[in-house]
């Protein structure tokens, strides 16, 4: 079979995200006039709109770095990793790991984790609606069988673990309020939920992330509690389970097969 002829799209597309390439030879201005600035309109639309999309997904990261730093970093990302879905709210899943590798961001080792919290925030925002588990359901469970309880996570629920103070830094930079100095060195794990229509980001206590992660994997409560106590001997099971339910992390409970 003869090779497919190069389509107009295959000729037009490559220079859109590559400023070193000239405008494609298949296009022209009126009456054969130069096409450079005309093609640049498309290049600019593509690049700027995708940088804007990242800025909308990662506002705290942009606030921390400043607009010029952010847009330069985002431009590198957009050119290397353009979106593969037409849904822009799905874009930038690999941006946090890009930030972690980005040379000029090495002095902010916590920046990638702040980005992870923001990405999780947007996923929670768009997640399927579901009624969170009412506390009364847990209260009604027979005490001697509590260890066998299995939880169904709410579609919005996510955990982001960080060796840095990602939750504090996220919270301080997400709204427009003035930011004071933050000690970045405390490890903070984030719980992201959306029990109604507002996304909630909470700082989990030590052991809380291991606990919630096991429950979200549908492991029984007893096993999750053991993991949490392993991670943190002072772990308070009752306070943590109450906190998770109050944040809307789950939709239902059932007794496992144990």
């Amino acid at each position, binding site marked *: 079979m003869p090779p497919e002829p190069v*389509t*107009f*799209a*295959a000729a*037009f*597309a490559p220079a*859109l*995200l590559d400023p070193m390439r000239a405008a494609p030879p*298949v*296009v*022209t*201005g*009126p*009456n054969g*006039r*130069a*096409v*450079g*600035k*005309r*093609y640049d*309109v*498309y290049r600019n*639309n*593509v690049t700027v*709109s*995708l940088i804007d*999309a990242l800025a909308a997904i990662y506002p705290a990261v942009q606030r921390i770095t400043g607009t010029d730093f952010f847009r330069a970093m985002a431009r590198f990302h957009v050119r290397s990793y*353009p*979106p*593969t*879905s*037409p*849904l*822009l*709210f*799905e874009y930038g899943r690999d941006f946090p790991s890009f930030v972690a590798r980005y040379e000029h961001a090495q002095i902010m080792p916590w920046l990638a984790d702040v980005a992870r919290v923001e990405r999780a925030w947007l*996923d*929670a*925002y*768009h*997640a*399927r*609606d*579901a009624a969170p588990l009412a506390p009364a359901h847990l209260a009604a469970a027979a005490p001697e069988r509590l260890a066998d309880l299995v939880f169904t996570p709410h*579609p*919005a629920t*996510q955990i982001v673990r960080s060796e840095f103070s990602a939750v504090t830094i996220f919270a301080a930079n997400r709204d427009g309020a003035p930011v004071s100095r933050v000690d970045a060195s405390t490890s903070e794990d984030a719980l992201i939920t*959306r029990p109604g*229509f507002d996304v909630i980001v909470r700082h989990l206590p030590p052991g809380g992330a291991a606990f919630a992660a096991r429950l979200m994997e549908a492991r029984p409560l007893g096993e999750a509690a053991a993991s949490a106590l392993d991670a943190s001997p002072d772990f308070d099971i009752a306070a943590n389970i109450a906190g998770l339910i109050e944040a809307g992390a789950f939709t239902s409970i059932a007794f496992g097969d144990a």
Partner: protein
Amino acid sequence: MNATIGPVPSTAMPLRFPIPVGGVAGTSFKHEHLAAILADGPQAGFFEVHAENYMGAGGPPHRALEAIRRDHPLSLHGVCMSIGGPQPLDKAHLARFRGLAARYQPAMVSEHLAWSTHETSFFNDLLPLPYTEATLRHVCDHIDEMQEAIRRPILLENPSTYLAFAETTMSETDFIRSVAGRTGCGLLLDINNVFVSATNHGFSALDYLADFPLSCIGEIHLAGHDEQADDDGEPLLIDSHDGPVADAVWKLYEIVIERCGPVPTLIEWDSRIPDWPVLKAEAAAAQAILDRREMAELAGDRHAA
């Protein structure tokens, strides 16, 4: 985490609005205006949204759209179907579009004569295509496929363009007329796009409109544009949707309405979005032109009788 949404008919969604909606003006719906719109109470006009913004599974976007849809006709405007591209349409995207149309029962559904995806890259812009027999076949096949998927005809929007393809063999109006004839789709006439392209390519907007199949128009778009310069220092207009409609575009609009009667008309404003009263006033200006035409028609009918 964002599962593909299926067709989820909402029981709370009344199907109160006939198709077509008639000679009414509408605006883009922006979430920052929701509170002001609801405080105003039900409007006479319709609201248009970009379909892709509501393709998440749940959350505040759907709550906002449901609140708007409860009291107003909706126009579902797709910007990412890539109908004008040579590669097959994205089946998952078609399914999402069908689900959204089933859920919100829009009065109008539209897409662009443009492409935005090549291979696996989504460029988030309305990119141009050459007008040839080959691209005409692709576009018609894609529109057939989309209309079959969503089980209703769409309105196809004429593009604003900044350059042309050497391989083009037919005029944009001939191309669009052929598409409408072969697929049965309606047309969304964006008069700002006509003005922008006419300036950028040096043709007459009035000639374009004279050659445009006005009988197929189901909706009109009006928007603001920005002015830059090309390599020769000649004006290059940018379809920026970030300001009021230009006087010249209003003039063309009056001419079109005079010729084809009242048509649903959208004020499209997508960036540097003003406060709600400003957008509302722009729609009221379009409504005044529509109403004047309606009155003239009624007076003419009386005269004829």
